[in-house]
């Protein structure tokens, strides 16, 4: 701040005048107070002999004159306690005011400052490669944004990705270092910290799933990062294991903000075409146009399940199949567990089986048989995350406080995590079978869920859930 002070110091006569005036006022106040103090002392001297006679009377008699004098001294709020304040205030002067982090802006650097090493993957919004910063030698991930065929100029998704990443500085969110540009107008690259793994590839490569203690550490980090995002009014809208990056120090970071955006209160109009199908929540599938951070919590539930079994939890072939897979796992919705789901646009065509007695609990517990090694607390957490009714799902904050994370086995310290060979760091190309995130600009599909509980057009209805039968009543 001292620099700023000197910057303005000599070109500011009026401010000086204000300050001088303030000083004068303060001086006057101080004199008035000294005067008052003197008068008080005098008063107490004169009244001293009467002190033992009558305390009540004395108090009345005492407080009268100084009060009047106080008014005269043009100092409205000065009970004698306040006399201490100026001194303590002066001491406090030195105490520092909160200084805001001061950023700067400057033009983008050129991508030639980086040497490309190898290709990592192609996501829905760009190509990612591993690169080396030529000046510092640091290894970074370089993500090229896809900008072609954008009739409205710079795509809003890319802008939001940059904007949210720049604002979401958290140890569990991938760090965007800078944005660099290429030779052409639509060559834009994001420079991010390089992480060795993504969780999807890692799970594919592993022989055994993570240990329960490791799952807790991973989940705590992901939900911790998500809690921060939500606290900054950012929805991620595409959480899935391939968007969770991990390094060899057991740290996990949320990446790919291509779908992320700010939300508000009241919520703005939002597109339903978000979240990769397997991680998409039932309210989105049923066509809700008002939704909130609960959709991210559903995805967290899917990720949790995937960490437990090493396999994506709900691998629907299309929207209809996805809905039937969800209901097969959770049981069908009803008015008790999800009031109002009937009014969602795509729920009209949904013909539900006549359920005899819904499973107990609200939300009902998922079938234990699917997760045999999970503790009761764990199953409880998973069941609430995968609650059909968005209002029943915990917030990220509530999730972090869940007893599951406090019972044995405790989360494994990050430093104790095993390390794995990095696919991204080598020349190997990987392909995985997660469907792609929905493309922006597509129309929301007109969905007919008539087949969800019937001779499903998507086929593969053989897998029955534990709670109910798929036969039409």
């Amino acid at each position: 701040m001292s620099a700023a002070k000197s910057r303005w110091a000599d070109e500011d006569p009026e401010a000086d005048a204000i300050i001088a005036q303030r000083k004068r006022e303060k001086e006057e106040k101080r004199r008035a107070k000294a005067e008052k103090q003197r008068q008080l002392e005098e008063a107490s001297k004169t009244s001293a002999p009467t002190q033992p006679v009558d305390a009540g009377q004395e108090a009345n008699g005492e407080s009268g004159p100084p009060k009047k004098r106080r008014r005269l001294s043009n100092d409205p709020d000065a009970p004698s306690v306040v006399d201490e304040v100026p001194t303590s205030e002066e001491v406090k002067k030195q105490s520092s005011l909160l200084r805001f982090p001061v950023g700067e802006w400057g033009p983008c650097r050129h991508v030639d400052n980086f040497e490309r090493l190898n290709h990592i993957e192609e996501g829905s919004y760009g190509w990612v490669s591993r690169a080396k910063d030529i000046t510092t030698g640091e290894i970074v991930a370089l993500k090229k944004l896809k900008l072609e065929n954008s009739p409205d100029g710079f795509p809003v998704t890319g802008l939001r990705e940059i904007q949210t990443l720049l604002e979401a500085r958290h140890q569990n969110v991938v760090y965007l270092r800078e944005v660099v540009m290429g030779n052409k107008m639509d060559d834009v690259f994001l420079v991010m910290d390089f992480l060795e793994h993504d969780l999807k590839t890692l799970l594919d490569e592993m022989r055994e799933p993570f240990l329960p203690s490791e799952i807790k550490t991973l989940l705590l980090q992901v939900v911790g990062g998500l809690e921060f995002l939500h606290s900054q009014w950012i929805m991620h809208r595409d959480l899935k294991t391939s968007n969770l990056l991990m390094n060899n120090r057991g740290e996990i970071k949320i990446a790919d903000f291509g779908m992320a955006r700010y939300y508000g209160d009241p919520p703005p109009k939002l597109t339903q075409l978000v979240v990769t199908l397997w991680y998409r929540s039932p309210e989105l599938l049923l066509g809700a146009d008002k939704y909130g951070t609960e959709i991210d919590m559903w995805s967290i539930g899917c990720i949790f399940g995937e960490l437990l079994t090493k396999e994506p939890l709900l691998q629907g072939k299309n929207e209809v199949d996805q809905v039937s897979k969800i209901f097969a796992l959770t049981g069908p919705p009803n008015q008790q567990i999800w009031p109002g789901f009937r009014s969602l646009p795509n729920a009209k065509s949904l013909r539900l089986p006549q359920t005899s007695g819904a499973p107990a609990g609200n939300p009902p517990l998922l079938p234990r048989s699917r997760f045999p090694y999970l503790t009761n607390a764990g199953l409880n957490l998973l069941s609430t995350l995968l609650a059909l009714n968005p209002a029943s799902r915990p917030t990220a904050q509530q999730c972090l406080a869940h007893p599951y994370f406090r019972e044995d086995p405790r989360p494994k310290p990050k430093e104790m995590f095993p390390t794995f060979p990095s696919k991204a760091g080598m020349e190997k190309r990987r392909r995985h079978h997660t469907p792609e995130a929905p493309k922006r600009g597509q129309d929301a599909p007109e969905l007919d869920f008539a087949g969800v509980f019937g001779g499903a057009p998507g086929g593969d209805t053989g897998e029955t859930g534990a709670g109910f039968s798929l036969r039409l009543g």
Partner: protein
Amino acid sequence: MAQTNAGLKHLSNALATPDQLSNSSSSLDGVPSELETSIRCAGAQLTQAAGVLLHLSQDIISQAIVIFTRFWLGADGGSLRIYSAKDVSAASLYLTAKLSFQPTSPRSILNVYNLLLSQDASPLWFVNPRGAPTQPPTPDSYVLSEGGYQTGRLVLLRVESVILRTLGFDTHVALPHTIALTYLQTLGVSRPAVSRRVLEHLNAALLSPQLLYVTHQPNALAVAAIYLATREEGVKLVDGEWWEVFDVDREELGFLVVGMRSTEGFMRRETEVWKNKAIPMEIDEVDAEVERRRMMDEGE
């Protein structure tokens, strides 16, 4: 501590460096600094007027003006002899609206700018020095042709990219308006006249030649506007240095108060100086004005 600082990003802005304030790309290209100030201020007013006609909220408009202001600063910034102020104004507004909850289309933007920059139909004093037309203007003085739209759109989108690159894609702008209202509540001031005056000061400060929004954090702007507004409305605030509660020191407050108060005088002088002529909003007009001033200087 890192956590709290991260949370503060929402309330703070990137500020111009002393270097960016003392050098501008335009001045390196020979644009006199008073002319640059005049054009920048007129551009801010143009952005404000366009935002109002587009029914955008003042949030978006204010952010657009800050982006517009940042664009011209520093040797790496934009030059008035390379980019037209009107195009940068339009692209700033388009870009800011796109990121907001109220996006708008290139066509709406171009229609509005076409009207505001029409020498016959514009109500803006620095475009149409004769003042707002009393008769309804003829449509062909402000209706955008299809060809005009197509070329205008290309320019709009190109300048949008240029702005993003010049600012390193940092589009974050924190505004003092809501902060000021929160502070007013904290101070127990509930009189609507004060709140209105605070917002007036904050919006006027967007036009300040001292570039208050790119040199001071929003909390300081908010405090200064409250200080002025309560003075003007005769509302007494708590005794003591209440601004320190809001992390503003007296020196900064004094500077801002002076800056905000001087904006009105600056605007009056501007209307006086540019009484009978339009402020150049396009490259060739700027070139002509620079040339004219050079001739005048040489003549004398």
